[in-house]
Structure formats: structure tokens, C-alpha cells
């Protein structure tokens, strides 16, 4: 599995996207904090966090006895550069070409 595959797979699940949104709002949360916001067992949340960590979307750090979870925006940036920029750029330039053509003909 490539890095991209792992990121797309991780993002394909609504619970995992929800976890990313929670971390986006406030980073550095423990499993217990994240668990309290989801209708899911501790084991289930751990499993989802593990998939997010394997994809590099979540990075954990130890702080004393606690394990804190942080959102890592970098893999999403790489996906954006590779899979979104490329296609939207052409679309945008097609529109600006159209605008130019239309304006030229008036």
C-alpha cells in the first residue's frame, strides 16, 4: 500500500473524518477525551486512531503518563498537491481562457 492509499483509506471512513475534525478544533487530546465525544467503545476509537496514525494523519506524543493525539496536516497537503491542484488548475485556466475569448470577441 502506498502512502496515498493509506491516506485515502483512512479518510474514507466517517468516524475517522469526525476524529480529524475534533482534532482540528483542538489538538493534543487523549483517547479518553476523544472517546467521550463518540458513541463508540474505547476499543473502536483506538482502532480508528491506529488507522489514522498509520496513514500519518495523526501523530501522538507522550506527555508524562498521557498519550496526546495531534492532527498532522502534511499528508492532506500532499494529496491536495497531487490529486486536487492538478485538476482544478486546468478547470480554472479553462474558465479564464473562456473569459478571455469571450471578452476578445466583444
Amino acid at each position: 500500500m502506498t502512502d496515498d492509499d493509506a491516506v485515502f483509506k483512512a479518510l474514507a471512513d466517517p468516524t475517522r473524518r469526525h476524529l480529524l475534525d475534533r482534532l482540528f478544533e483542538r489538538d493534543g487530546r487523549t483517547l479518553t477525551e476523544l472517546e467521550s465525544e463518540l458513541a463508540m467503545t474505547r476499543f473502536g476509537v483506538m482502532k480508528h486512531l491506529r488507522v489514522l496514525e498509520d496513514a500519518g494523519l495523526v501523530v501522538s506524543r507522550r506527555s508524562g503518563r498521557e498519550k496526546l493525539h495531534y492532527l498532522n496536516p502534511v499528508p492532506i497537503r500532499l494529496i491536495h498537491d497531487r490529486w486536487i491542484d492538478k485538476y482544478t488548475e486546468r478547470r480554472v485556466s479553462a474558465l479564464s481562457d473562456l473569459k478571455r475569448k469571450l471578452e476578445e470577441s466583444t
Partner: protein
Amino acid sequence: MSTTTAQATQVFSIAIRATPEAIWEAITTPEFTQRYFHGARITVVPDHYHSLGPDGSVWGDAEVFEFDPPRRLVHGWQSLYDPELAEEEPSRVTWEIDPQAGGVCLLKVTHDQLEGAPKTAVNIAGWTFIISSLKSLLETGEPLAAA
């Protein structure tokens, strides 16, 4: 888009196909940093972190707290490249290079102690671009095109 304030601790991590030594050199020598770090010429020695902008102005001047090549670097941070950000409290940047199987290293950049620097905390979302560009430079010989 959410309107929450930026976090006081932010973590940026990326896998790079390069040796720890190559990554260390790329983050501590000006010949490398100027190619991926918005043109900044950054020199890091055991007790001092110094960054010069492309126009020669001082972008960063800070203490080095830990200098353990090629694995761990911790230095202070003040955004001297922007007068408004420069007035904020100093924060801290930690670089960790962690070799994985298959010739890949995990590079983790943690920017923390940002409690007294809320505007800097927003501004440093730029780390994402910087370390993506660093990865590109080390793996392909070319940085990312400037954003």
C-alpha cells in the same frame, strides 16, 4: 472553515526517503535551506540558530536547546521576518528524525510553547509547505514550486 484559534502545540510529520544525515544537513545548512525555506539561509550550530532572508534581513535569531545530529534538534523561534509577529513571545521548534525500515525516515516538526504567540501560531501553518518542499528536494533534487 472553523474559526477556532490556532493551537499552542502543532505537529507536522512527513516520511522522507533519505538518510538521517542528509535530512540533518538539509535542515542545518544555508545552501539547503535557501532552496525550500522561502529562500531563508539558515545556519544551525550547537548553541545558535540563525536565519537570513533572501534580502539579507534577519528572519530568525534564537538559542539552540538541543543539538544531537542526526536525530534531534530543538531551538527557539521568533518570527522576525514580520514586525507584528516579531513582537510576540518566543516559542520553540523541535525536529526529530526517526529512521524507519526501507531507507525512509520519519521527520517530525513540533512547534510548541505558542501560548504567547497567537498570530505566529496561525502563521506557522506554513510548516506544511516547508517540509513538503524539503521532502521533494531530498527525494527528487528539486523543491516544490513556491506557493
